[in-house]
C-alpha cells in the first residue's frame, strides 16, 4: 500500500516538474521572438501605507509609465485641445485651484474613484471612463500618429491601439504619482520634528478629540469609503452625492473621503468647492455640522454634541498639522512633469 502510494506520488511530482520545465522553455522562446524585455518598475512604500495591488494584466514597466506620462500631458486625447494636465496641475498636487477636481496622488491605493464613486475597483476602470466617456478620445488620431503606434507596440505588443491600451498606459503613470515624503512622513521616519503647534494638531487629529483619523486614516489619509459629514441639511442635485448612484436614501450626502495629503494645495475644498480655506473646513467640523439621518455616526460627539468645541488655538493647531502633509518633492518631481 505504502510503496504504491510513494510511487504514485513521485510520478505526480516528476510529471509536474517535467511539464513545468517545458512551459518555461516555451516562455523563453516567446520572449526571444519579441524584442528586448520591458523594464519592470516597482513602487516601494512604508508600512503605514496599505499593501499595493497591481492588476496582473497591467504590470508596471518603465516604458509603460513613460507612455502614460506622454499621454497625460498630450492634448491628442481630447477633441477640444485639452489634456489631463489642463485640469490636474502638478504644482497643486495634480488638482486645480478653479475646478474642484480631485488631486492625483496615491491613487494606486484607491479602489473608489470620483466624488461619488462612479467608478470602483482598479485604476484601469477609472481610466477607461476618462478616455472613453469623459474625453471620448478619437483613437484613430493615435493610430495615425507618427510615434504613438511604435510606443504602444513596444509596451503592449499591439499594432492596433484601443481605448483600453490608452487607459492602461495612463493607469501605469498615475500609479507612479506617489506622495509619501511630506514633513509628516519625515517625522514618522524620525528625520524631523513637528513644532509644538503641529504636534498638538496631530494629537487632536489622531484622538477622539478631533477624530479625523477614522475617515482620513493615517497613511493614505482616506479610507476608500463614502460619508456624509453634515455640510448640508437638505440635499438637491449633485449634493445628493452617492445617492445619485445607489438611489438609497441612506447614501444621501455621502462623498468619497478625499485624501488630506497636500491638502494645503488642493483648495477649494469639498466636492463642490464651497470652502476656500482650511480654516473654513475646520470651522465646519467645529461648529457647523448639520444633522440629517445619514450623517456619519462619528460626527456625533460625546454627550450628543455636534461639533468639536475647539478653541481658536486648537483650530489653528489642527490647520498647522494639516499643512505638514504638504510634499514639495512630489510637486517638483521631474519624473512626473511634462516630458
Amino acid at each position: 500500500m505504502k510503496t504504491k502510494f510513494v510511487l504514485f506520488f513521485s510520478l505526480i511530482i516528476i510529471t509536474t516538474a517535467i511539464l513545468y520545465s517545458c512551459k518555461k522553455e516555451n516562455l523563453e522562446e516567446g520572449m526571444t521572438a519579441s524584442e528586448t524585455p520591458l523594464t519592470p518598475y516597482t513602487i516601494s512604500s512604508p508600512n503605514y501605507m496599505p499593501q499595493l495591488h497591481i492588476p496582473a494584466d497591467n504590470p508596471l514597466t518603465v516604458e509603460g509609465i513613460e507612455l502614460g506620462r506622454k499621454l497625460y500631458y498630450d492634448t491628442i486625447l481630447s477633441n477640444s485641445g485639452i489634456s489631463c494636465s489642463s485640469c490636474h496641475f502638478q504644482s497643486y498636487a495634480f488638482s486645480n485651484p478653479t475646478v474642484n477636481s480631485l488631486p492625483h496622488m496615491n491613487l494606486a491605493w484607491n479602489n473608489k474613484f470620483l466624488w461619488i464613486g462612479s467608478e470602483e475597483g482598479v485604476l484601469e476602470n477609472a481610466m477607461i471612463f476618462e478616455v472613453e466617456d469623459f474625453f471620448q478620445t478619437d483613437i484613430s488620431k493615435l493610430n495615425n500618429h507618427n510615434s504613438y503606434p511604435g510606443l504602444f507596440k513596444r509596451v503592449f505588443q499591439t499594432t492596433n491601439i484601443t481605448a483600453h491600451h490608452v487607459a492602461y498606459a495612463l493607469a501605469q503613470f498615475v500609479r507612479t504619482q506617489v506622495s509619501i515624503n511630506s514633513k509628516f512622513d519625515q517625522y514618522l521616519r524620525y528625520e524631523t520634528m513637528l513644532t509644538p503647534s503641529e504636534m498638538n494638531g496631530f494629537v487632536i487629529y489622531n484622538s477622539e478629540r478631533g477624530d479625523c483619523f477614522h475617515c482620513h486614516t493615517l497613511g493614505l489619509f482616506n479610507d476608500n469609503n463614502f460619508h456624509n459629514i453634515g455640510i448640508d441639511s437638505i440635499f438637491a442635485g449633485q449634493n445628493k452625492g452617492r445617492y445619485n448612484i445607489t438611489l438609497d436614501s441612506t447614501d444621501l450626502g455621502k462623498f468619497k473621503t478625499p485624501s488630506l495629503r497636500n491638502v494645503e494645495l488642493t483648495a477649494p475644498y469639498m466636492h463642490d468647492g464651497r470652502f476656500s480655506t482650511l480654516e473654513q473646513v475646520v470651522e465646519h467640523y467645529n461648529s457647523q455640522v448639520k444633522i440629517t439621518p445619514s450623517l456619519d455616526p462619528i460626527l456625533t460627539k460625546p454627550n450628543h454634541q455636534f461639533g468639536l468645541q475647539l478653541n481658536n488655538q486648537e483650530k489653528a493647531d489642527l490647520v498647522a498639522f494639516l499643512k505638514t502633509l504638504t510634499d514639495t518633492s512630489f510637486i517638483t518631481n521631474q519624473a512626473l512633469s511634462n516630458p
Partner: protein
Amino acid sequence: MRLLFYAFLVALVITLLGACNKNDNFFPEKIKLTVKLNHVIDGNPLVFDTLVFFNEAGNNYEITRLEYYISNIKLHSDFLGDYESNDIIYVDAANPESCSFTLNNVPSGKYNSISYTIGIDSIRNVSYYLPNTNENIGMAWPDGMGGGYHFLKLEGHYLYNTVSTGFAIHLGSNPFQVNGSFNQEFMLGYNPYQIKMEMNVNEWFKNPITYNLQTDGNYTMGSALLMNKIRVNGHDVFTLKNN
C-alpha cells in the same frame, strides 16, 4: 533523469517515515474546521441602515458598521483537551466573505465549550503588527491612546429625543479586550466539518450592565468608563447555533 527519480523516491520515503514517527497516536483524525459567523439582533438577521431594532434599555437603533477582530479561539473538550488557534481574524459583518474562516488540524470528536477574545492579546496588539491591508490599517487604534488596533467598531444611529443621532461604540487598548465563552456541547464527527457562531448584537447592551445609549453615552472612545461597560457585556455575545 533516472537519478532524479531515485532521488525523489528517497526524499519522499524519508519525509513520509518522518511523518509516521510524529503521528504516533494517529487518532483522533485531524480535520479542517470551517467556522461561520452570523450576526443577529435578538434572533432577527442584522440588516444594516434600518432603524427597526431595540435594545434592552429601549433605544430604537440601527447599525451602519460592525467590524471586529476575533482571536485566541479555544475549543475545549473534556476528552481531547484544548485546541487553541493562534489566528487573528478580522470580521466585517457587512462582508460575508470575512464572516467565515477555517481552523486547521482540529482533532475530531466531542467538544464542550468555546472561548475566544474579541480584540487582540497585548503581545500582538501593537501598531503595525498585522499585515498592512486596507482593513487592518482602517482598524488602527491611535498611538497616543495606546496604539494597536480597534477591537470593535459598532456604529449606527438611534432615536435620541426623536432625532436620529449617531453612536459609535469603539473598543481598543488591552484593558478592554473582551474575553468571551459559551458552554455548549458539539460534535466534530463527520464532513462537512463546520460550526456556526452567532453574535447577538443586543448582548453588547445588556448582561450584566444595561447600556443605554441616551444616558450612558453614545461615544465610547476615550472613556474608560464606557468602554469597560461594553467590555463586561461582551462575555456572552456569541452562542453556538446548529447549522
